[in-house]
């Protein structure tokens, strides 16, 4: 999808730099350091900027990479090329270990947790005998190809920047894929993603490992650039520094990581070499100025510099429309033992002393539109959450096609062919409508993260996007397909949610107030769409407040009041039911 041209130009420029006449060797050293920092920052971009998981501990993973190769090449005489995969495996597997503990932490626990183990590991590096304690390990062999040894900063330069560019490409490929969409949805909370089968803890662990492996790669390169390691560069300060490299560059952008690394490394160097000339004699002036500049930079561009720079470029509008002729195979239907799709029996949900849903029973048949209505606080959305596995019922049972699904998580419910929309729209605002809708087809794709990175997922991906485009067309939003979801009106966003739910290829569609915020014409279109879906064999269960809409559309209506079912029947009988009138209008109107 993205144009490759700027990257090729960038690669050519980077390749040409060492050959420029009069290039000071010191600049090459700086570029080496920028590349090393960029690798770590890139991982953080994915972890923090995209996935919303803040980590201070990345320096420790750099340390794992560096120490692994240092120990294996010096004590065991392994070739550095052999230790490369080992370094990556060590950082990756320790990431699994630490990740299992930490990624489930929410909000502020996570950064602080990573800070804590980052510090702990730093002290461990500096105390362990076989890692050389505070002195570290020296005399690490250089990288070599044949008889060519990469002894100088200029020769390892290529190894570093090839690594940076390849990593950037792989990372961008990953983001632009089925797995990538799941990762990008993480930051907005997990309920919506899980409703479409995304296993969020696994997705979080995945980005954690990705970031750690990139850090390990940086560490491996560092060890062979310096040819010596000691604990200092892997401490908490370094961990914090990597994080602000990512933030200064623009934490949501892969190239922001590279830009941030360039800014921070160059800034520190300039401050260290020129500041003493202006303010001679005083110790840590560069740290002071650096700290102040950091705060100032954030106040001027809180989103980071990369998006700020990009805002000067002409905006690229419109992407290619996916080829909708590609068909995605249908979700396998389980053989229906009964015509009852959904059976809710005496479902009850208590929050402490509050009974939100009080022994409610109803069912949804095949090819039927059932409306769930009731005044505010009647327990409609809670009922939805019980059915879709977001909440588990205190008592009672819920079965789908005769199978009990009481304790099933949302990911299992959606596999049965039940998909939903949300009362409060849960889209990822900085993803396009197409990408948001494609999340709905998550379970119908198969490409994993490795395939995505290597672009082996294109056939799978094209089918997913084709399906998403088809559903967008079906709900009538083709014009908005490539716009950011956050830029749509609230009513349109609700329609996008419906398209996303349709991507599941559901047998039962649960819609939570789909008509709220729609204009009259749009409501009529929505009603027509829902009727068409029913006639095509799908069932719909909807919560709605617009009585005109419900009465004209629903085959059957279930009325809740204060968590209890007070009536059920056809629209005509509900309209005249005295209990219902009382619930809505007070005592006999």
């Amino acid at each position, binding site marked *: 999808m993205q144009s490759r041209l700027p990257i090729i130009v960038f690669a050519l420029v980077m390749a040409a730099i060492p050959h420029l006449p009069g290039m000071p060797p010191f600049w090459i050293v700086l570029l080496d350091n920028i590349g090393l920092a960029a690798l770590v920052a890139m991982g953080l971009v994915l972890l923090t900027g995209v996935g919303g998981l803040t980590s201070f501990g990345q320096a420790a993973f750099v340390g794992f990479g560096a120490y692994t190769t240092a120990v294996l090449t010096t004590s065991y005489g392994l070739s550095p090329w052999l230790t490369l995969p080992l370094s990556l495996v060590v950082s990756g597997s320790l990431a699994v270990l630490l990740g299992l503990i930490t990624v489930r932490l929410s909000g502020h626990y996570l950064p602080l947790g990573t800070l804590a183990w980052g510090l702990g590991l730093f002290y461990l590096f500096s105390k362990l005998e076989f890692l050389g304690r505070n002195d570290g390990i020296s005399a690490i062999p250089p990288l070599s190809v044949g008889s060519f040894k990469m002894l100088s900063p200029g020769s390892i330069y290529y190894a570093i920047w090839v690594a940076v560019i390849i990593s950037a490409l792989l990372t961008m490929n990953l983001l632009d894929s089925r797995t990538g969409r799941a990762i990008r949805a993480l930051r907005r909370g997990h309920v919506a993603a899980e409703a479409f089968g995304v296993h969020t803890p696994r997705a979080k662990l995945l980005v954690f490992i990705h970031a750690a492996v990139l850090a390990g790669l940086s560490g491996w390169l560092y060890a062979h650039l310096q040819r010596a390691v000691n604990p200092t560069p892997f401490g908490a300060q370094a961990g914090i520094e990597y994080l602000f490299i990512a933030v200064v560059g623009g934490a949501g952008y892969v190239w922001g990581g590279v830009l941030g690394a360039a800014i921070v490394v160059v800034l520190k160097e300039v401050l260290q070499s020129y500041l003493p000339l202006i303010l001679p004699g005083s110790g840590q002036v560069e740290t002071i100025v650096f700290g102040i500049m950091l705060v100032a930079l*954030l106040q001027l561009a809180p989103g980071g510099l990369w998006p700020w720079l990009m805002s000067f470029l002409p905006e690229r509008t419109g992407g290619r429309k996916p080829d909708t002729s590609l068909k995605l195979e249908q979700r396998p239907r389980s053989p229906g033992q009964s015509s009852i799709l959904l059976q809710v029996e005496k479902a009850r949900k208590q929050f402490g002393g509050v009974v939100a849903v009080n022994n409610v029973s109803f069912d949804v048949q095949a090819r039927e539109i059932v409306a769930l209505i009731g005044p505010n606080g009647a327990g409609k959305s809670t009922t939805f959450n019980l059915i879709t596995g977001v909440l588990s019922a205190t008592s009672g049972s819920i079965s789908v096609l005769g199978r009990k699904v009481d304790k099933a998580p949302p990911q299992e419910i959606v596999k049965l062919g039940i998909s939903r929309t949300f009362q409060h729209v849960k889209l990822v605002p900085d993803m396009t409508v197409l990408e948001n809708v494609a999340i709905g087809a998550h379970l119908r794709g198969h490409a994993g993260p490795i395939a995505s990175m290597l672009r082996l997922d294109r056939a799978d991906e094209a089918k997913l996007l084709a399906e998403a485009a088809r559903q967008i067309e079906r709900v009538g939003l083709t014009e908005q397909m490539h716009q950011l979801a956050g830029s749509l009106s609230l009513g349109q966003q609700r329609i996008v949610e419906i398209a996303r739910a349709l991507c599941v290829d559901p047998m039962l569609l649960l819609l939570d107030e789909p008509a709220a915020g729609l204009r009259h014409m749009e409501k009529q279109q929505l009603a027509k769409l829902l009727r068409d879906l029913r006639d095509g064999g799908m069932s719909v269960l909807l919560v709605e407040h617009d009585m005109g809409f419900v009465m004209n559309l629903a085959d059957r209506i279930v009325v809740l009041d204060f968590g209890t079912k007070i009536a059920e029947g056809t629209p005509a009988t509900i309209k005249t039911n005295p209990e219902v009138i009382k619930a809505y209008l007070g005592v006999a109107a």
Partner: protein
Amino acid sequence: MNTTIMLFLLQDGITNGAIYALLGLALVLVFAVTRVILIPQGEFVTYGALTYASLAAGQMPGTAKLALALGIGAFAFDLFVARKALHGRLVVRSLITNVVLPAIVLALTIYFAAQKPPVAVCIALSLVIVAMIGLYLYRIAFQPLAHTSVLVLLIASVGVHLALQGLGLLFFGAEGQRGPAVLSGAFTAGALRFTGQSITVYAITIAFIVGLWLFFGLTLYGKALRATAVNRLGARLAGIRTTLSGQIAFLLASVIGALSGIMIVPITTLYYDSGFLIGLKGFVAAIIGGLVSYPLTAVAALVVGIVEAFSSFYASNYKEVIVFMLLIPVLLLRSLAAPAVEEEKD
């Protein structure tokens, strides 16, 4: 193991733990109200300690000048923000709190520093100086970023930490300092010797915890702060000035930091960069307390202090490793018990 040693370690641990408890409380307070993870908390500790020690040694601490410089900066920020609607009262009020006040304190510091002032004066001056630094820092560095994400605030916090640590080296030099005991004298009870200093630590910690509890439970400002912590927007709609809440939180945090510093510096030699680690141990306690619970944080801090004391006796090499790794089981428990709540992030 020897009971005397055990009691001694326990006592040592509790003394340190009490300090971590105070710092942990301050961190929880600032985070809850402003969403800033206050990494410069450690600098408040060293600034308080070293200002006190310098004054007691009859030297002029640079922090007094820093307070004035930051105050002038805060005044400039105030003027800039209000540039469209400047009126006299606002300018005068800002001038008094941001410029006149630190100028007076600077003058007093210069006057007293020349004549080795009594301990009480040193404490008072150090507290006021660091309190002002905390207040102005909030105005300059954090208030303009109040609307941004926790991550951006965190990075800004790191920036402030770096700048303050660098300034610390400039003001106090690379050598460590010790200060005179706040309360001299000692008594023994059984095998244990209680110094006046350790008694002071206990008393002040308890007083502060009770004081904070009363402040949050009974006063209007305390309640406003709690309201801000729960819901910023809601608090603003209810007429609470969230900037004021932020200022109060920073003021309290800097006073607590400085006070902790003044209590430690007679016991341990402090260097310009000692604060970071001390603050981090407060963090550990705050995390164990879940960044929300004050009593839990206080208890956790005592545990941290005791674990540290024992591990420095039995495995001094691994002291820091053990303290920071203490978190892992706690985090593990918290992850297992974490409720599956939806969080909407901005």
